[in-house]
């Protein structure tokens, strides 16, 4: 079942990219404070590369001014691919990348999508959520993976 407003982010260990490399952290510590998380179906895919991630990088300071402690971008890719993508986009530490390579967190939140037809296997739907101390306060899921609004 898809996670809903008012529910907690499932407790899991996830991989997050830091400047020094990949760090394993629990979602309990990752979602402390006010966090904006958005997800993309894949690194290096056109919509994500051209609009979604750069949009958050560009407005990162505006989010911080509105009380957001951190911005997280989740993708069902491994950490090496996300690291290469972050460099190409020029993330510069403004957005934290969460490599959900096994799709464990995505499946636990019911936000997985079957993209086998395009040769992408299981991925994440495109969405954005606001999380406060682990609880989902707002969630917007895009209808089609190619959309970005």
């Amino acid at each position: 079942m898809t996670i809903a407003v008012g529910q907690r982010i499932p407790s899991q260990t996830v991989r997050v990219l830091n400047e020094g490399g990949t760090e394993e952290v629990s979602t309990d510590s990752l979602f402390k404070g006010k966090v904006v998380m958005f997800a993309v179906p894949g690194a290096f895919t056109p919509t994500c590369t051209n609009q979604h991630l750069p949009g958050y990088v560009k407005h990162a300071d505006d989010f911080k001014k509105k009380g957001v402690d951190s911005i997280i971008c989740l993708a069902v890719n491994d950490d090496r691919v996300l690291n290469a993508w972050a460099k190409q986009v020029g993330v510069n530490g403004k957005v934290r990348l969460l490599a959900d390579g096994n799709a464990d967190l995505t499946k636990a939140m019911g936000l997985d999508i079957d993209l086998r037809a395009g040769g992408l296997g299981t991925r994440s739907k495109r969405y954005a959520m606001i999380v406060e101390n682990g609880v989902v306060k707002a969630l917007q899921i895009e209808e089609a993976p190619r959309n970005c609004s």
Partner: protein
Amino acid sequence: MTVSQGGRAPEATVHELGDAGPKAVSTKDLFAGRKVAVFGLPGAFTRTCSSKHLPGFVENAAALKAKGIDDILCVSVNDAFVMDAWGKEHGAPGKVRMIGDGNADLAKALGVDRDASANGMGVRSKRYSMIVDNGVVKVFNLEPTGEYGISSAEHMLTQL
């Protein structure tokens, strides 16, 4: 079961990035009527692959083609977008075709799939190379886990 030398290459659908996005292509079509060098690896942008495996085939593409290879395919359990981006970073266009086996269908059909979920990579492929002549596997080189040698372009040149 792992594919064997002398047997037919299995049929699977893989994807290559085209102008309109990932294009599905059957291995049957990729291998029909030609001699193809294939190398498979655990992941785009990973260390051994980035520093040795793909660059080795890009560098030796002309030498392999001079020895009768019609096409060189780099295959990984990544999607076509990632494969294309990684290939461009290493000068693959025109030399090595970047093939995404994002559903791991080919890796499983070849019997070279492995569970890499402990590293957050889901199901991936073991490192290997093979020479497929008109659909028949003539040479198959499977690397022991963590090793890199017999699947290299340099080694394949000695097998042609």
